[in-house]
């Protein structure tokens, strides 16, 4: 390299000649680095997705070959499947209640953690603990006990003379038992909010104080608008997670009572792995994908109205 530096012309020539060769070589090197993911992406994501799309137009029980039925599965889903309507309804209600609650909780605690008091690092960790273990079978076992007839909650209520129920098998409360469990795991949006809060320049608050703004005004005019990109991010991720909720409903309420907690993922699992209707379950999966895509699209579209980007003037 160094010897050629004296002559820019020859450097340019060698550069051009070598460029193609180097491009090819670098493509090959890149291919070798990428190959694990490429194999996975083609063999375990794209391939299966195409196959699943095909299956959604068939009846397939894994014993005999898939049988082409055209649009029958989709027609049945939308016109003649009470459980589809029920599970979609349950899932939407669950997402609509649990996601905002979780985010409000996460933001509230993150703001407490960001007040500059001593020990907030340790507190953050403590509040994060439920998020690591919340999806486990162990917590499902505990939840069944705590919200059971003879459980801890009813014992506490008994001190106040209230007689409780077997909460997770009561049609009106079963879903709430699961909502509480999910909101309890607000740790990761909290940490993300905390990172967002720390990015807000302190001068803004100082300037607002000089202008005589109180806490509430500062929150609505500074904190909330500047946090909207983080809120947006958390909203999308929690929403997608909400639609995929499975384990805790499977373990704690088993979809019951009277299908009040029959989450979509649970219904899909049953169709696929209990009834072995692989074709129908694939159609259900594609409907889920489209629903999630639509909701994501709506949130993205609406984000232009409420997410603050520094280049434009802020709208809150």
């Amino acid at each position, binding site marked *: 390299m160094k010897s050629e530096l004296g002559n820019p012309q020859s450097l340019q020539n060698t550069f051009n000649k070598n460029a193609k060769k180097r*491009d090819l070589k*670098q*493509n090959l*090197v*890149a*291919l070798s*680095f990428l190959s*694990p*993911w490429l194999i*996975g*992406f083609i063999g*375990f*994501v794209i*391939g*299966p*997705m195409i*196959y*699943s799309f095909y*299956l959604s137009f068939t009846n397939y029980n*894994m014993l005999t070959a898939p049988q082409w039925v055209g649009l029958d599965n989709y027609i049945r889903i939308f016109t003649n499947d009470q459980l589809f309507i029920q599970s979609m309804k349950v899932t939407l209600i669950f997402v609509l209640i649990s996601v905002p609650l979780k985010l409000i909780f996460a933001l509230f605690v993150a703001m*407490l953690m960001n*007040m500059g*008091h001593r020990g907030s690092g340790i*507190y*953050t960790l*403590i*509040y*994060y603990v*439920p*998020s*690591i*273990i919340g999806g*486990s*079978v*162990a*917590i499902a*076992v*505990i939840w069944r*006990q*705590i919200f059971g007839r*003879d459980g*801890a909650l009813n*014992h506490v209520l008994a001190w106040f003379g209230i007689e409780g129920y077997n909460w997770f098998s009561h049609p009106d409360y079963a879903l709430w038992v699961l909502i509480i469990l999910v909101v*309890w795991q607000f740790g*990761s949006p909290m940490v*993300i909010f*905390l*990172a967002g809060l720390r990015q807000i320049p302190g001068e803004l608050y100082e300037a607002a104080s000089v202008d005589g703004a109180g806490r509430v005004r500062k929150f609505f005019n500074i904190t909330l608008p500047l946090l909207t990109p983080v809120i947006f991010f958390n909203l999308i991720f929690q929403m997608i997670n909400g639609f*995929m909720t499975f384990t805790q409903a*499977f*373990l704690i309420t088993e979809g019951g009572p009277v299908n009040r907690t029959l989450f979509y993922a649970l219904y*899909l*699992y049953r169709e*696929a792995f209990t009834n072995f209707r*692989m074709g129908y*379950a*694939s159609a259900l*999966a594609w409907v*889920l*994908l489209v629903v999630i895509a639509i909701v994501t699209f709506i949130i993205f579209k609406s984000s232009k109205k409420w997410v603050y980007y520094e280049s434009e003037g802020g709208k809150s």
Partner: protein
Amino acid sequence: METKKSKTSSILYHSFIIGFGFLMLYPILWMAASSLKPEHEIFLNAASLLPSDFRWENYAQGWQGFGRYGFDLFFKNSMIVTTLSVVGALFSSSLVAFAFARLKFKFQGILFACLLATVMLPMQVTLIPQYILFHNLGWVNTFLPLVVPAFIGGSPFFIFLMVQFIRGIPRELDEAAIIDGCSWYGVFWYVILPLCKPALVTVMIFQFMWTWDDFLSPLIYLQNTNLYTVALGLRAFSDPDNLTAWGPLIAMSTLSLIPQFILFLFCQKYLVKGIATTGIK
């Protein structure tokens, strides 16, 4: 800061946070306490966090498991699956992320968009065809369906996390190495990988936590009791047909969380940083 007013507000603040934190941790504390309670006390004194006397029998009894299968077997299975998955995730995410962050290649933009799209892809869509695939490969009732995906970039999150991290490492370092005659493989192995330690630790923690907790994949792929992971073992243990007593069940539940707790305590610094930078669950 040292005025009287700030002192009272500080006391208020800390008592609120501690009280609220106690409420948050109550279910976990309750579990740990109940695992030491004698059987009748679990329901009699359900809300209390103090066992009248400490009993370790629940653990001894629970460890026996059910039928011929003890929890030693389930823990061993979980350890095998988790360890291999962690190795797989470290392997695939570091290699692939290096290519995206440092190399120039054809279709780079499209491929990166594909990667990001799969981050958002609900797993239900690929669940069924993947099951059929593994079924046809004869992998059902082996650990392979739980482990192999990790080796081929099954968690695009991790690749994304590593890409972000590697982009933050100054390019001058690899340029210098290349001028010194290092190949791209050398740059990866000797320059980038050692500097990626914090990101690798984050990947390790999350993969460990998720695999250890994972319920759906073992539920689908492992039907023989001798292959059960702790999650499946615990579920079978809590089944009314097998359930002999709450005490041992709660004891085993507590025990099943210990590996995650240990990892959390030792690596919390990386964990919190990892979530903040990438926003993973």
